[in-house]
């Protein structure tokens, strides 16, 4: 029996040691917002925040995360009370089929935190003097671990830039 803290609530779970965080969420806790697109850390659809940092939840086992704070798409907001990033994806049409979308949104929230903390990316120019700005190139680079086959990339970039620069999701 392990205890997982998901979106602020504690859950006691009896899981197989082979069970990933992703499968614990989807098959045991009924939190199906985090998606399984590849189960190999190749697509990003399963992205959750663990202690505020974005993680592919298919690549880490549930038994390794007692005491960690796990945040899923359900924990960010809900219809009628959306998180600014969810609202911005809605308005910018940063999704089509919706399957990669929770991962994109959670990843985007985690990514803005990384930028705020001054983490550089592959395309960041001079890392000796201040952090990265939120150019389209920076956002695209930092979001390239989240695949979208419907190809909403241009709108995803717009949605994230709006939240990153204004803090607001609504247009």
């Amino acid at each position, binding site marked *: 029996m392990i205890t997982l803290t998901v979106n602020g609530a504690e859950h006691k779970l009896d899981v197989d040691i082979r069970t990933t965080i992703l499968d614990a969420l989807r098959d045991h806790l009924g939190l*199906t917002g985090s*998606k*399984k*697109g590849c189960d190999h850390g190749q697509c990003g659809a399963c992205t959750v925040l663990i202690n505020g940092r974005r993680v592919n939840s298919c690549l880490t086992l549930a038994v390794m995360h007692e005491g960690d704070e796990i945040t899923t798409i*359900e924990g960010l907001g809900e219809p009628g009370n959306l998180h600014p990033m969810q609202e911005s994806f809605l308005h910018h049409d940063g999704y089509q089929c919706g399957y990669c979308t929770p991962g994109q949104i959670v990843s985007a929230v985690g990514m803005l935190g990384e930028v705020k903390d001054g983490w550089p990316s592959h395309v960041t120019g001079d890392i000796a003097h201040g952090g990265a700005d939120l150019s389209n190139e920076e956002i695209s*680079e930092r979001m390239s671990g989240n695949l979208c086959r*419907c190809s909403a990339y241009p709108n*995803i970039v717009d949605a994230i830039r709006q939240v990153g620069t204004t803090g607001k999701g609504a247009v």
Partner: protein
Amino acid sequence: MDDQTVFKMDEPVGETRLDTAAQGLIGKPLDRFEGPLKVSGRAPYAYENLAGDPDVAFGYLVLSGTGAGTIRSVDTSAAEKAPGVLAVIHDDNGPRASADPNDQRPAAIKGEVVHFGQPICVVVAETYEQARDAARLVKVDVETKEGQYDLLANRDRAHKAQNGAMQAEVTKGDFDTAYANAEVTLDVTYTTPSQSHSAMEPHAATAKWDGDELTIFGCYQLVSTNVGQLAKTLGIPKSKVRMLNPYIGGGFGGKLGIGPESVFAAIAARQLGRPVKIALTRQQVYQATSRRSDTIQRLRLGTTRDGRITALAHDTITSNSPGDEFFEPTGISTVFLYAGENRQITHKLAELNLLLSSSMRAPGEAVGMLALENAMDEMAEKLGLDPIEFRRRNEPEVDPQDGKPFSSRSLVQCMEEGAKRFDWANRPKAPASRREGEWLIGMGMAAASRKNLLQQSSAAISLSSDGRCVVSTDMTDIGTGTYTILQQIAAEILGLPREQVIVKLGDSDLPQAPGSGGSWGANSAGSSVFVAAEGVVAKIAEKLGVKPDEVTMKDGTAIAHNKQTPLAEILKGETITVTGTFKPGRTFKDTHQASYGAHFCEVAVNAVTGETRVRRLLTVAAAGRILNEKTATSQCYGGQIFGIGSALTEELVVDTRTGLLVNHDLAEYHVPVNADVPQLEVVLLPERDRIASPLAGKGIGELAICGVGAAVTNAVYNACGVRVRDYPMTLDKILPGLPA
């Protein structure tokens, strides 16, 4: 008893309530109807139904590890003894891949292995981990035989394809003589590899039986067709299957036919007497569902010295697995896109031991126009003509094959608008003539065309006294925007705020629509909603004692003879329900219908590494009335990005010794990622096609993928002078030809 109303499109439709647009909703860039559920993770996809239900068992497929042979035995004894295993089900009637959507059922295993990664059996256990583990213990003994895995090596064994999405052979005049006599000729052969749809949601199904009635939560694009395929495979009446597909994580053709996940889940759930879920792994999706065929395409163009086409041939060889007759109809647009008196368009099919080849986004055009639009670019250069001018000189006045008038055709307008916006006049005229540091800069263009398809469709509308409206049909939304555009059509015609219109989709109990495929969805399902809504208006008019065309519907009221009456007052507690059916008619037969566009691309090719970066990409499209500017634009982005993938990175690599699809996951099959895509531009030209449908629209979902890859590779040629005729244009193919 509901009212039924039927409309057959035998004559062009004049001005409609969509033109007067009293409510002002049609065409507007509204946010998606189901958006709040999707962005908050609350829209349940197939696998996610019955989540947390302890009664659910989990299935895991076992696939073949050989490419061709006869199954001697399947030893399940070790797997059956593994912890948690409930059953190992080996059913010879099980599918060897997804179904071709045109077939009544998926081809059955029947003791044979016809391709590497073919489903063999399913292990069902209490948990997913247990099923996955036990699946490794199943021993499949196959008497192997020599398989055929290589299209190039089998090109001479190809046979004439059976007529399918188009006739396998379309000819006119005398191509050979005209080509022999042409003043300028071009004879080039292009090859394209097998491709994978790679929708983000892996194929999944949740099956549950109540007595002899099956409920299947699926991920399929064509509900009614798929219910039929599943029932046929299980040997039960269609009426005993209820399919629910309200949310589908992408399709692109990969979910047009019922798949092994549903058949095995249904068989296992029936045998065990409890619900069973099966989600294919990503690797299984690549190997056990379907693919787009690889192609060899020979293009021959003969012209006069001033660039008028006199002879045009497009001869294609495609592949499919034994017994599967679908062929990739690469020549579908070649039939009508350009003028020329002497024409020959043929398709042959080679039987290979590879996964089923079936429809993938814009079957035919998507890879056919890679070849055609590259050849047009090559010929334009040979003639010394601007590629736009060459196309303009070959713009046909009527369908060049059978002389039918076009219902609408804005190709030239799209090219001209695009050229202006893209500053085409200032492109580098000679290849490899513009350089920025180590990057060679080039521009290319291509035409887009996608044949317009239209299907019979039904939808029901209920309008209650309080002004609430429910639109219901078994139509699907695979990310295309169906929910939203059907809401907009109903709200516009009935004069209701959009919030008052609810849309229910993807349930086989609802009126039958043709599903999502071939870009016919919005026009077909939308027309049935149009017909049903007009039926409701007619009822209201009757109650007011006026003619339907005397009524204006707006803001929950009906306005007639200068009197505005709230719906509550007219309906007095009654609910009106009308089922509308739309049928294609004479206008579809009497005209040639297609959507058109033009793509313009700027690339940078690295002079040292051969790497290509797409810097700008513009698509100008004309597809009749646009129902929602936002979702239509997103569809075009999707097509453009699919095109970047097919031009530069996407290829299913076949190990020609074994038939293994080597790169069967998302790390190795390279779909474009965010950083591969610049900010794109899409321009939708105003157009109304009153011959095509009551909505005056045409298909748009696949238009933008048609030709776009050729705009990319034409730009690559313009940038660096290397013309690669073997897609995708990866850097290893470009590097040897780069200027010193």
